[in-house]
């Protein structure tokens, strides 16, 4: 089994595709780290607290988020189809290896290759930071480690998707199209669809009351320099009280509306690995003094998706008819 895994690992790391994409990610990361260091310096001299992982440019759509996803996809889309196309799968299965071992070893090999790539990118980035004289603290190193793990999981999710595409497709081209289809579905369509569904379920947002809010001064007539007339609470208690109630009711309805809408759209975005990845990354940077957002759902979705796709590919591969 280890032989298959080693072979898969060797195939992965020696493939030009892997090297090219890893190289691109490394370059982008080095650039974002360089940018991040400047921002980190500026924030530091301004006396602001900034999370250490911010130097990796976590909010940037380039780097790990986009190219990481591509890397994952491109590493897996032809793993099965290529073997089928070259006929090597038959040869492989004629050896005393179980089918499940084959797919497990493919996954392990890819996972190891991804781990190496991410580890190297992160260590090189840390090296650059040291060159700048920034000494990360222990908690910073832990945060970087967590960042690495999350990124690994993220890229592995797309690997699992493409592996699934590879098991169901007849050839590599179809597999690549299917894999990219899933990518587009999870990255763009699902969030948009979630928004549409939420809108249709919840309906239009509540309208604000026609009266001005009680504490707001009445604006002066345009063009004039008339003094701002402040509504004196003591003068018009009845109207003021009524306006206050109306506004309170409106604010309550508005909050409820957005809460409902977010609940529906979140249900869809939990299926989006990108959304989950970003949500989990941003929770890394936060310090306990701020109220942390609950990312449990995102974590569940983040872990569930690769597992589901891997199980699906596993089942499909085991039942596959090899001609």
């Amino acid at each position: 089994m280890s032989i298959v895994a080693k072979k898969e690992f060797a195939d992965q790391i020696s493939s030009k595709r892997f090297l090219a994409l890893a190289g691109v990610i490394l370059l982008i990361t080095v650039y974002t780290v360089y940018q991040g260091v400047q921002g980190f310096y500026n924030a530091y001299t301004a006396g602001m607290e900034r999370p250490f992982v911010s130097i990796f440019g976590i909010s940037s759509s380039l780097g790990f988020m986009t190219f990481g996803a591509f890397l994952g996809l491109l590493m897996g889309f032809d793993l099965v189809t290529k073997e089928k196309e070259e006929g090597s799968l038959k040869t492989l299965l004629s050896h005393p290896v179980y089918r499940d071992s084959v797919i497990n070893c493919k996954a392990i090999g890819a996972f190891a290759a991804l781990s190496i790539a991410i580890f190297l990118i992160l260590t090189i980035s840390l090296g650059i930071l040291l060159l700048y004289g920034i000494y990360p603290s222990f908690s910073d190193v832990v945060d970087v480690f967590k960042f690495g793990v999350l990124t690994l999981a993220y890229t592995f999710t797309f690997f699992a998707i493409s592996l699934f595409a590879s098991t169901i497709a007849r050839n590599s081209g179809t597999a690549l199209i299917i894999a990219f289809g899933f990518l587009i579905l999870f990255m763009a369509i699902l969030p948009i669809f979630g928004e549409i569904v939420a809108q249709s379920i919840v309906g239009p947002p509540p309208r604000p009351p026609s009266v001005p809010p009680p504490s707001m001064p009445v604006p002066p007539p345009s063009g004039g320099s008339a003094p701002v007339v402040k509504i004196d609470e003591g003068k018009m208690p009845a109207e003021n009280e009524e306006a206050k109630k109306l506004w309170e009711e409106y604010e309550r309805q508005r909050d409820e509306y957005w809460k409902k809408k977010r609940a529906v759209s979140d249900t869809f975005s939990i299926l989006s690995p990108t959304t989950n990845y970003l949500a989990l990354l941003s929770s890394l940077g936060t310090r306990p003094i701020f109220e942390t957002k609950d990312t449990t759902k995102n974590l569940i979705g983040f872990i569930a998706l690769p597992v589901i796709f891997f199980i699906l590919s596993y089942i499909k591969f085991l039942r596959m008819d090899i001609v």
Partner: protein
Amino acid sequence: MVPTGNVKIIVILLAALLIVGSIESDVKGVNAVPGEVLKFWLTITNDYETKTSVKLSYTAPEGFSGKFFYNGKEVNWIQLDAKESRIIEFWLEVPRDAEEKEYTVWVYALDSTTLRIKVRMPETSIEITPSFSGIRVEAGEKVTIPIELKNKVNTELEVNLSCTVPENWTWRYLDGETEVYRLILKPGETRQLNLEIETDSQADVGEYAVKPKMNNQTTEILVYITKTHKGEKGKVKLKVVGKDGRAVESAQVRAVGAVEETFMTSAEGEAVVELPQGVYSIEVIKNGYFSKEIKDVEVKAGKVKDLGTIVLEKKPYYSELVVANPKLSFTLGTGNPTFRLRMENKGYLDDIFKLKVYGLPENFYYRFKESQESVEGVSEVFVKSGEAKEIYLEVILPYNAEPGSYNLSVKADGNYDMEKTIILVLRGEYVLRLEPVGGRYLVTAEPGKVVELRFLLMNSGRGASVTNLRIDAEVPSGWSVSAEPSQISALMPGDSVMVTVSTVIPSDTLPSEYKVKVKAEGDQTSLQEEFKVVVKEKSNAALIGGAVIVISFLVLLVIYRKFGRR
């Protein structure tokens, strides 16, 4: 002419024996008032058969005087033909001081007759008729009441004029513009007089009686006070001018009477002095002028007493020495203190003043200068009449001058001597100085290290120690700082102390240039100096960074070499 004593009686008796004529009067007795001139018509008859000269005489009590008139001429003798009768007028003047009683007067002419004069003072010899018997006035007002006097007796009447008024009221009688207190009324004469009454401003509202009195006769006029000024103050108004007609401002107007008050005249020389009712002596005093006193100024409640214009006369020599800054606080070591003086010659003659300063401590010098920048001193100053001159007094301080308060006296002796006390307060000079060891304000350090800023803190001021010195430093956030010593109870002038400010640079500090502001705050002064701390990256940081990158690539190479081959 009138026989006296026993001789008189004998003559009368002999004459009675030898009566050869008669004297008759229709009137034998009359009533008269003192001073009245009585007229009797006497019929003298010559019973002789011959022409006879008749001597006319009378005997009357002392003070009575009589005269005989015939055909309008005074006569003593008359000649009567035989059996002739003639009527002679006999005027008898009753003395003014005649008592009220009956007097007897004998008249002789050939015979004698007796006239009985009963002198009685009539109860109402004068008819007093005031124009009004009741008047309404405000308290303090003057009122004039015309009074008509008529002599009811047949004699010239001397009338004493007086009046009974309530307390503090005044009165006087005026005949035209002339104040009169006594007058003479001819028999039957009517005279118009004005009684001027000045009411008391403090009189309560109510009815008061004013009783004009002519001799022993009185009448009553009622005066009703409609409004009182009780409790109110009266005012005295005056204007003070010099002989040149210019108003004298800021002249002191001192009123001494029921109370003592001092007021000042305005720029127009005017003063309105409010005083309680009473009689005051008002003194106007002004430097350079002879003072003037106005006595018995009666101030009435609620009334304005206008004293008009008071002219003050200038003194020939009078000057004023004004010090613009009579108390001068000065910090030692910042030059020499200068007082600004102004000499104003307010007399009408020019004057020369010799200037001197007394009370300076040893080694202190002074000089008077005509301008602040001048370095030449003057000892005498000539000031023209009506002019002023600015003079500066510079006190030259010795190097060892001690802080403290010095009372000095400036004298200007001329025809008019002046002296002013000035106070010079010398304060110590509080100067703190910081000198870093080696003169370096820039320190290089590494993160995680302790930086020591060592410096000498000096009191380079003069004459005064800086107390309660607290030493602290302002460092970037996250840096810890301590000073040794952090407190100094007193730093004497010229003394210095070595201070070490230690700051710990946190290990996560980014390499950059940082500022450390060292502060030394004392009770009197404070000092702040800025040090620069350049934090450099740890010397091994670049090495480690480079190594990490190289190792990463090596690892990749090893993996590639190991697995890259089929």
